[in-house]
């Protein structure tokens, strides 16, 4: 059990080390792809186990819960690990065509896999302090990726990124300290029960808000999002795709975990704050995007607005709301990573991502146009693509609790998303290129083209599959939401299992 849980973390680490030691030869990048395939296999295995058993738990180093480091996978964690592995593989393939030899020498592949290890660790851990450690692993690796190459623009974005993330980290750590002082435990399952017994519930709410701010920064929620558009357009496209797809979602995941498992004592206050913060996140993100004229900057602002939908699902705090949030999370990772990959290929063909200076992509490479339409319309919520179902669930959930205004904002933001997507379409794809360049596929070499197109097509196919046959995915999200809203099974899986382990240990001692 514990091995199934820890392999999705260990494989990227081993891959990263191996890729680093082979960084000066061509083997490094193939090790990277191979490791990503192995991660995918491990996460599929974990997913199968979770589907069969509900919860899979384990203890590192045989130290029993709640004292040792618990790894635990429920449906949400398992699907996040799986989707991380899928995105990880897609971007690892894309990187074959993008990452220059110089960046490979500097250790691009190692950092990339350490980032994936950090992301998987954050999804799988059942211990609050351990979660902090994985956030740090992610931060270090992502900072390395962000400034790799060291151009002036990158350092500028990197400084903003690190400064704000450090604020979030300090807030997180302070919250952990307070919570440990109040309850004497940091095991999440243990906390779930212990937090209700704290006398000073006011202080618990304060700590809950500290966590909300800490994870809100990571997830780029209003009003703490400004680090994201300042940094995401500077690094390689592979890097920004994996950032856009995964990093902010770790923040959303942590919010979902904390505010369903632990901080449910004062839902009327905490989730109300989250509700309005989500609405403003959606709105500011989409309005910010409307003002941009750079392919990647528009997409960056759209990450923010889409994050709002996910946290909105959590804030509504009904089974349907959480279900919508989970569905949104999965759909958005695929779509957003794909859009950044397309922006990368389009940018390379047309010679940049500034929409005023490029054009003609549709005429010269219609296939890329078709591939752009799929995730772009999915993002905006056109039926029958995956985004439609995600938005439908969220809007329906907010109508159910009679939050008319919130539902209105959610729909309005969808409309404004269409505006941004058509702007990209009109500028980058439709209008002729201002410098009379013909951005056809022949402008890049065959291997580079296929390394770029394979992941783009793969992710687009996934989007269509979710869109056309949403039933199993919706049912899955429903089960995941049930698990989240009823933490008793989670608690039992972690603490009950450890009692067995203690029993075993005692028997062995005799």
């Amino acid at each position, binding site marked *: 059990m*514990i*091995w199934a849980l*820890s392999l999705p973390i*260990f494989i990227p*680490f*081993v891959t990263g*080390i191996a890729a*680093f*030691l082979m960084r000066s030869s061509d083997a490094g990048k193939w090790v990277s792809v191979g490791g990503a395939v192995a991660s995918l296999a491990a996460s599929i295995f974990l997913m199968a186990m979770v589907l069969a058993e509900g919860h899979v738990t*384990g*203890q*590192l*180093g*045989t130290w029993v819960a709640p004292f040792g480091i618990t790894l635990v996978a429920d449906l949400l964690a398992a699907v996040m690990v799986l989707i991380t592995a899928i995105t990880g593989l897609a971007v690892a393939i894309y990187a074959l065509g993008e990452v220059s030899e110089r960046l490979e020498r500097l*250790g691009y592949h*190692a950092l990339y896999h350490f980032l994936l290890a950090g992301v998987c660790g954050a999804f799988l851990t059942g211990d609050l302090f351990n979660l902090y450690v994985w956030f740090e692993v992610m931060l270090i690796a992502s900072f390395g990726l962000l400034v790799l190459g060291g151009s002036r623009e990158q350092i500028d974005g990197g400084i903003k990124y690190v400064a704000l993330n450090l604020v979030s980290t300090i807030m997180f750590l302070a919250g952990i300290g307070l919570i440990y002082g109040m309850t004497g435990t940091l095991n999440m399952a243990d906390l779930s029960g212990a937090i209700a017994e704290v006398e000073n519930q006011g202080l618990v709410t304060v700590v809950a808000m500290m966590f909300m701010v800490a994870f809100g920064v990571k997830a780029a929620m209003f009003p703490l999002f400004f680090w994201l558009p300042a940094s995401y357009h500077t690094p390689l496209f592979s890097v920004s795709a994996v950032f856009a797809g995964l990093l902010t979602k770790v923040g959303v995941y942590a919010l979902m975990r904390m505010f369903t498992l632990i901080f449910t004592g004062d839902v009327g206050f905490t989730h109300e704050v989250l509700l309005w913060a989500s609405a403003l996140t959606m709105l500011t993100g989409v309005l910010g995007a409307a003002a941009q004229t750079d392919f990647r900057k528009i997409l960056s602002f759209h990450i923010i607005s889409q994050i709002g939908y996910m946290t909105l699902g959590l804030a509504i705090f009904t089974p349907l709301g959480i279900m919508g949030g989970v569905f949104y999370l999965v759909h958005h990772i695929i779509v957003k990573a794909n859009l950044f990959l397309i922006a990368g290929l389009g940018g390379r063909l047309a010679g940049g991502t500034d929409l005023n200076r490029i054009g003609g992509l549709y005429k010269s490479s219609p296939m890329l146009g078709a591939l752009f339409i799929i995730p772009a319309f999915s993002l905006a919520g056109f039926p029958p693509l995956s985004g439609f179902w995600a938005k439908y669930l969220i809007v329906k959930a907010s109508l159910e609790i009679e939050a008319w205004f919130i539902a209105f904002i959610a729909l309005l933001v969808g409309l404004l998303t269409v505006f941004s997507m058509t702007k990209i379409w009109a500028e980058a794809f439709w209008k002729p290129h201002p410098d009379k360049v013909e951005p056809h596929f022949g402008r890049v070499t065959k291997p580079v083209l296929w390394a770029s197109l394979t992941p783009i097509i793969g992710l687009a196919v996934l989007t269509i599959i979710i869109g056309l046959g949403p039933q199993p995915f919706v049912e899955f999200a429903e089960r995941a939401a049930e698990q989240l809203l009823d933490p008793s099974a989670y608690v039992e899986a972690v603490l009950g299992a450890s009692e067995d382990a203690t029993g075993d240990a005692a028997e062995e001692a005799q």
Partner: protein
Amino acid sequence: MKSIILMTAARLLLVLMLVFSIFMLLRGHNEPGGGFIGGLIGATAFIVQAVAAGAAEARRVLRVSPEALAMVGLGIALASGLFAGVVFDPPFTGQWHWVGGDSYETAAFSLNTVLVFDVGVYLVVLGSVLSLALSLEEEV
């Protein structure tokens, strides 16, 4: 500015501090110390060298690149954790082999994965601190 006094002293200090760092690494097994602090002291030894004779000289004395050192260290730490799989224990379960006895009290000494893990930490800290310090030294 090169000081002949510092350069001469640095050569002696390098050896002394490296020995002391390994002492700290081993001492950390049961007393305050350990891989992290040992790695820091070891890194300081090379930083003194870099201050006295320049970063290029420190790199020459180190022989391998600090980044590779850190990665190998990480690999060693990871391998010590995964070794538990050989005997079907959960990862990072400490494996102990007592030499000349069968418990902590009676054995002369022990072979264990815990110390291997600490050696890994030592190399990670040594490598990553040096990697930062030497590139800063080169910038200045």
